[in-house]
Each structure stands twice: as C-alpha cells, then as structure tokens.
C-alpha cells in the first residue's frame, strides 16, 4: 500500500512558545482514506493538518523536530508551493480565504499558481463549478455570498487542482446547520467519487462519524488514539463520552449480556443505525428527569410587547412578537439562518430601534434608555468574540468593561476577582487575548461581557466551533447563572446544546413567533429543531430529548 504521507516522531513548537504544539506524533496516511481528526481547541489538530502541506514550518516559522514526508517529499526541504501539487487545504473562516473578487477568478487562482494553461483552466473551473453546484454563481462577487457559499467556493478552488490529499480544517464551524450539511455532503461526494484521501478536522462528530474510515484523536499535541470509528467509539467510552454522538452514548449503556453476536454491529452513529438496533431488543424506558438546578423563575427580566422589527416598515422581518423572560430562566431562541434572531436580540438593549411595539427591560422602556444604561442590566455577547478585544491583556479587557459601565472601587475589585475565579482566568490575565486559543478566547469574551454582574445575559451563537469539553463548561456556567437568578438567553442553532441547558424554547419563523414553550414540548417531534435522541425515540417516548433522561429496561451497563 502506497503511503501518501507520513509523520515520524514529529514535535513542533510555534515561534516563541515554550510548549510544543505537537509531541512525538507519528502516523501514516494512505490513499482513499477518509479521516476525522478530533480534539479540543489547542490540541494540535490544526497544526497537524498544516504539517502536511508545509505551512508548518515554512509559513509559521518555529522549530520542527522529526520528519514529515508528503508525496515522497520531505517538508523540510520542499516548500509549500511544491507540496500544493499533492495537498489542498480548506480553512475555517470563509471570509479570510479568498483573494479575488469573483468566483471564477478565485477558483482559477490555484490553477494559475501552478502554471496551468488558459484553456485547461477554463475547463477545470467549469468542472469545479458544476461539481459543487456553483454554476449559477459563476460571475458573482464574493462580497455578496453567504458563509456556506464562500466555503463551497474555497472547496472548489482547492478541488480544481485535484490534490491527492484534501485537508479541511473545521470548515463548517462558522456555518449554520443547513450550510454545514451541504458542505459535508459535498465532501462526502468527493470522497466517494475521487480517489483522494480526505482529512477533516471537525467538532460535531455526530455529523460525520458515520462517513469516515478512521479517527484520530489529539489532546495537548499528542496523538492519543488512531483507529476506525467503532474501535474509537469503544475507546472513547472510557472518559471521552462527549466525543460520541448521543445515540452512541445511549446504546453504549445498554447491557450486552444477551446479545453476544459474533457480528455485533457495534455502536450506532446515526439515527438510522440506532433504529435497526432498537427493533431487535428490549425497549428502553424513561426515568425521572434529573432535578435541574434552576432557581424558580423570579420576576420578569424582559418583556416584549407587540414588537415589530426589521429595516423596512412595509416589510418587517418579524412582527407581533410578545413574550416575557423571567429571572432564573434559561431560554433558547431558535430559527432559520437570517430570520432575525440576532436582530431581535439587539433590540433588548436598544442597539436597534423597533418598527413598532416596545421592549421593557426590568420594567423600563428600552427606547428611553441609552445603550450603555441598558447594557448595565443586560449583557449581550455577539457571535464573534474577537470583536470585543481592544486591549493588550485579559486583565485590561475586564477592566475596560467595568470602566465603561462606571464601576469603581471595592465593587470593581470584588467583581473582577469573582469573574476571574468563576471562569478560571487567573493564568491568562497577562496574556494578549488574541494570542489565546479558541476556547480560551471565548472564556475571556464571556468574562468581559458578564463581569459587571448583569441581571440578564444573552449569548449569540456561543457554541460555534466549540469542542465538547468547552461546551460542557459553558453549559455549567449557564446553569450556575440561572441558579443565581439571572435570565439567560441563548441564540443558537445547536439543538443538542440547547436541550442540555434550557427549559424553554422560542422558535422564530417568517413574520413572527412560531413556538414558545417548554423545551420538551417545542423540540419534541419537530422536523428540524430536534435532538438525535428525540428523533430516534419520539414515537416510543415522546418528550424525551437527551440520552441522560433514559434508562434501559435491563438496566444500564
């Protein structure tokens, strides 16, 4: 079997860092593999991928020990542009990948770099457009495309050069679920139709574990596990359950005693696999929902009265919105991409003015408050934590928010100490926020947002690109805040996360409110906004959303 790429005892330090990003990593990659790389942020997934096309070390600098061989070339002596013949890499951020202004030129860019003739470029560009379903956007300006479309263009641009090894570094983490699915479907088509090896770094294992032939798990720079999905799942049960899809976790708990089949199909990764397994064995039954640590909902924190929002008075985005949010309550705000969730949330503190109706924040009309005054009571964190970082150290960031809100003296000291302890930032206080990894940045952004102890906290898509570990931490924070009497609103597409943390769900649709009620009711039986477990068991056990609400008849193993 011909090896496409090989790493031998690779250890790598980014310039100026004491700790290596990769430690003694060795692995071999062959043709026609589909590999999933998982690991929390900062674990070295991205570094590993970049080793394979020469960006590490030639672009990033630093120190490299060990040997990386790709397509017969040693990356020590071969530059990135030589390796680009065999390797293609799609990056995470759709907006920071493109160089040209129109789609066709962008796709042609890689081909031009390789000196391909004009006629061949025309053909390859055409084919790449067709392959990824982008023909109608051929002349479109990149500035007008959505994130999902931009990622498809990036993929087309890389695929046009027909690399043997296609690397994708968290390509869906900045995308909404629908675009993510489209991109993953395109990747799957590529894996099936071409002989390329595909290496995909991705957090949401439930979307792709069933598509891959091999899983690599990285932790803190070490390649901890390297196996096919079933064996990986078996390994992950011991201490890394968060990496597995909910149905796998559910079935892992089923007692295996009477099912000693020689051809044990293993743990299911998708709802379809799980259905097949369900048929043959005893039915599970639900157990008591674990007592949630919610405080009993207190007074009204925010009330919307017949709110109409949008940019055009004749065509409002949403209208007739009337709801109230209480203290001690966790609410998820869901809806299709672009329906107006983020816009709505801006109205809570007066960043946008409604077309009609009003918003009452703690009893006061937001329209009569300044944004700064409203921000004192309701902290809103936007989708991009980087937007907040204006200072050179974490400590100064927190101080900046407190300054802006006019908090001084003893109260300031105690709030600062409090938030640092709560979000575990003591070690990071003197670091530059922009030097931190993704998970750390989100923590710092959260700290800078909620340090002033607001009554209400709104988080807009906080789990984008977040690994399982950090999601669990965030969920714990949310529960803590709710127990302390805050009202927490989560604008999110991540149904699994929402189901684990909120009690109430509001769904927005075209023109207004589609649903508003307990999570168990709204998410149950939903066509789109539903959890894996619910999709599996909705007929047998209506209203059940999470696998920890279920126990097996024969007892858990």
């Amino acid at each position, binding site marked *: 079997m011909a090896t496409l790429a090989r790493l031998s005892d690779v250890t790598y330090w980014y310039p100026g860092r004491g700790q290596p990003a990769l430690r003694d990593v060795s692995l071999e990659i062959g043709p026609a593999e589909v590999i999933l790389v998982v690991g929390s942020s900062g674990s070295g997934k991205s570094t590993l991928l970049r080793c394979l*096309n020469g*960006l590490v070390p030639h*672009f990033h600098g630093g120190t490299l020990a060990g040997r990386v061989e790709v397509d017969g070339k040693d990356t020590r002596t071969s*530059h*990135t*542009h*030589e390796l*680009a*013949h065999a*390797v*293609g*890499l799609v*990056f995470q*951020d759709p907006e*920071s*990948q*493109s*160089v*040209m*202004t*129109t789609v*066709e*030129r962008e796709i*042609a860019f*890689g081909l*031009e*770099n*390789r*000196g391909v*003739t*004009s006629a061949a*470029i*025309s053909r390859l560009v055409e084919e790449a457009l067709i392959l990824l379903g982008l023909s109608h956007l051929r002349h*479109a*300006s990149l*500035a*007008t495309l959505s994130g999902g479309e931009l990622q498809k263009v*990036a993929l087309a*641009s*890389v695929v046009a*050069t027909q690399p043997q090894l296609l690397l994708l570094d968290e390509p869906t983490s900045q995308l909404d679920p629908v675009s993510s699915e489209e991109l993953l479907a395109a990747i799957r088509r590529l894996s099936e139709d071409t002989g390329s090896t595909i290496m995909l770094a991705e957090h949401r294992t439930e979307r792709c574990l069933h598509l891959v032939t091999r899983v690599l798990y990285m932790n803190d720079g070490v390649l901890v596990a390297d196996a096919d999905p079933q064996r990986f799942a078996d390994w992950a049960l011991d201490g890394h359950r968060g990496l597995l899809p909910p149905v796998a976790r559910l079935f892992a708990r089923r007692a295996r005693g009477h099912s000693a089949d020689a051809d044990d199909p293993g743990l299911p990764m998708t709802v379809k696999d799980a259905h097949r397994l369900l048929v043959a064995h005893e039915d599970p039954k639900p157990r008591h929902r674990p007592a949630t640590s919610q405080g009993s909902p207190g007074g009204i924190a925010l009330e919307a009265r017949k709110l109409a929002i949008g940019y055009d008075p004749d065509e409002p985005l949403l209208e007739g919105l009337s709801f109230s949010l209480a203290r001690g309550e966790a609410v998820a705000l869901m809806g299709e991409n672009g329906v107006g969730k983020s816009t709505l949330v*801006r109205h809570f503190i007066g*960043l946008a003015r409604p077309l009609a109706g009003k918003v009452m924040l703690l009893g006061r009309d937001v329209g009569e408050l*300044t*944004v*700064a005054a409203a921000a004192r009571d309701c*902290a*809103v*964190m*936007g989708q*991009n934590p*980087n*937007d*907040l970082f*204006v*200072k050179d150290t974490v400590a100064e960031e927190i101080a900046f*928010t407190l300054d*802006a809100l006019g908090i001084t003296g003893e109260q300031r000291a105690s709030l600062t100490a409090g938030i640092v302890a709560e979000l575990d930032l003591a070690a990071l206080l003197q670091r530059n926020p922009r030097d931190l990894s993704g998970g750390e940045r989100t923590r710092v952004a959260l700290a800078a*947002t909620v340090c*002033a102890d607001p009554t209400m906290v709104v988080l807009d898509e906080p789990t984008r690109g977040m690994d399982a570990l950090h999601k669990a931490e965030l969920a714990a924070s949310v529960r803590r805040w709710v127990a302390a009497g805050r009202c927490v609103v989560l604008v999110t597409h991540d149904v699994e996360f929402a189901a684990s943390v909120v009690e109430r769900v509001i769904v927005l649709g075209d023109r207004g409110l589609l649903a508003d009620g307990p999570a168990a009711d709204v998410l149950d039986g939903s066509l789109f906004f539903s959890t894996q477990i619910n999709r599996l068991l909705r007929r047998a056990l209506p209203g059940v959303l999470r696998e920890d609400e279920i126990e097996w008849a024969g007892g858990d193993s």
Partner: protein
Amino acid sequence: MPTFRTAAVERRASPKRRSEASRRGLARRRPAAIVAYVGALTLAALILINPLQVTLLLALCLAVLIVAGRGRAAWPYLKTALYIGGFLAIVNPLISRSGATVLWQLQLGPFHVPITIQGVAYGVATALRIIAVITAFALFNLVLDPDDQLGLMSRLSFRTGLVISLACRLLPVFSRDAARISNAQRARGVELDAGRRRARVAARVPLLAALLAQSLERAVDVAASMEARGFGARDRSHWSHERRWRLADLVTTAAALLAAAALLGGLFAGAFSYNFYPLLDDPWSQLASLWWVLAFAALVVPALWSLPWRRSPG
C-alpha cells in the same frame, strides 16, 4: 459640499457582472478596447483648450454615456463636475488681469477687480474642460466593471494587481467587521456618541485597535490560504477568459490609437494651443486644423459603431 479634492462619488460595486446581452453601446466592447477608447477621450479632455473643441468633446462623451445606458448613473459625477466647474467659472474671471476688453469694474473692498471678456471666456473654458475630464473618467468608471479594471491591472503587473484585488476583496469584509465591532463595544457599555469631537474620536480609538488587529489576523489567514494554493512558484500563468477580439473591438482600438496619435502630434506641433490673453484667439479657425479633424473623426467612429441600430453582436 464636495471639493475637487474630496470628489468622492459613491458608487456601488455591482454585485453581478451585467450579463453580456444586457450591455449596450460601448459596454459591449472588450475591456481592453474600452480602456483604449476612454483613454483617448481622456487624453483629448486633458489636451484640448479651445472652448469649441472642448464642447464638442463633452457632447461626444455624454452621448457615449447615454448610449451605453449609464446616463442616470453619471449624474453624481456631473454634479461634482458642475460644482467644481462653477467654482472655476466664477473665480477665474475675478483673478485674471491680463484681458484687454473690460466688461465692468468690480470694487471689492480696497481691490479694483476688472472683469474682462477674456477672463470670463477663460473661466467658462476651464469649467468646460474640467467637466469634460470628469465626464471622461465617469465613462471609465461606469462602463468598465470594477472586476474588469482589476483584470486589466493584473495584466500590467501581476503582483500589484493581486494586492489591489485582495484589497478590494477585503474592503467589504472590513466594513462589516467595523460595524460589528461598534455594536459589540456599545453592547459592553462604551459610549461612542457622547461629548465633543475629540471625546468621540477617543472613544473610537479602541475600536480602531480591534479592527486593526482583526484585519491583520485576516491578512495572515489569507496569506496562508494563498500559499496553500501554490502561490510563490516561479512559473505562473494568467487565465485570459475573455472573448475573442471582434471587429468592433478592433475598430474601436484602432480608432483610439489613431486619435491618440493625432492628439499628441497636434500637441507637439502646437496645433492645440489656444490663447485667451490679451485677446481671444479665433476659436473657429482651429476647427479646420487637420490634427483636430483627424482626432475628432477617429473619436466619433467607435461611438457611431456602437449605436444600437447594428444587429450583429460586434
């Protein structure tokens, strides 16, 4: 009020290239042909001084604009042009003293300001000239898509064209980043619009810091993406996917070159110089000059060729 220094006329970069079939007039030509022709018109606008010649040129430019369907879009440019032209038409007669025929004497404070016919003519002529130049550039901006402009620039110097293309790609991204950063900071309690000018600028400095750092991070990501796609190799090719040269393109370009030659030749032969002082030269006699006739005829031909009465795609 705009001045010539800040003559900024905002125009939306068109999201989709106008499809070939919907193009009219000059816009149907190849970018290279368009540039040659508009270049010749601009050259004329810069060289000509005789008011009659300038007026004819201006009329031609306007006609080409209208036939190409960009008449309405040109209005902001014309407004700027009229403002600047108006300034020149008023100020120049007041400050020029070399004219021989005095119309009347103005008394501005301690100053005697003689208004002469020659001064007024000079003022009007310079106004027309600047309007013609701005109109020629309006033609360039409106008939040529930004992407075509970029493509042409990259033909001249690949790296420079790349930098410009990349900057154009990033500009809307950064604008959106700026808006988002402003909102994020406001949501944090930062007061951006309170106080005097200096306070408002000071409040925005942290935002500028964030935007600066963010932009440079994006630049690093883009550079990585470029290298990952093979940038940096020696033998780079250029994808020319424009359509072939048609007869109309050739005619336009040839006429443009001929006009340019006639204009430059006439310039160096002194055929295009025109004196306002102390007495006005006879403007009509220059219209018979061979250089002028050749240049103007060459400029008119492509315009006629692009009139919609021709059925063929050329």
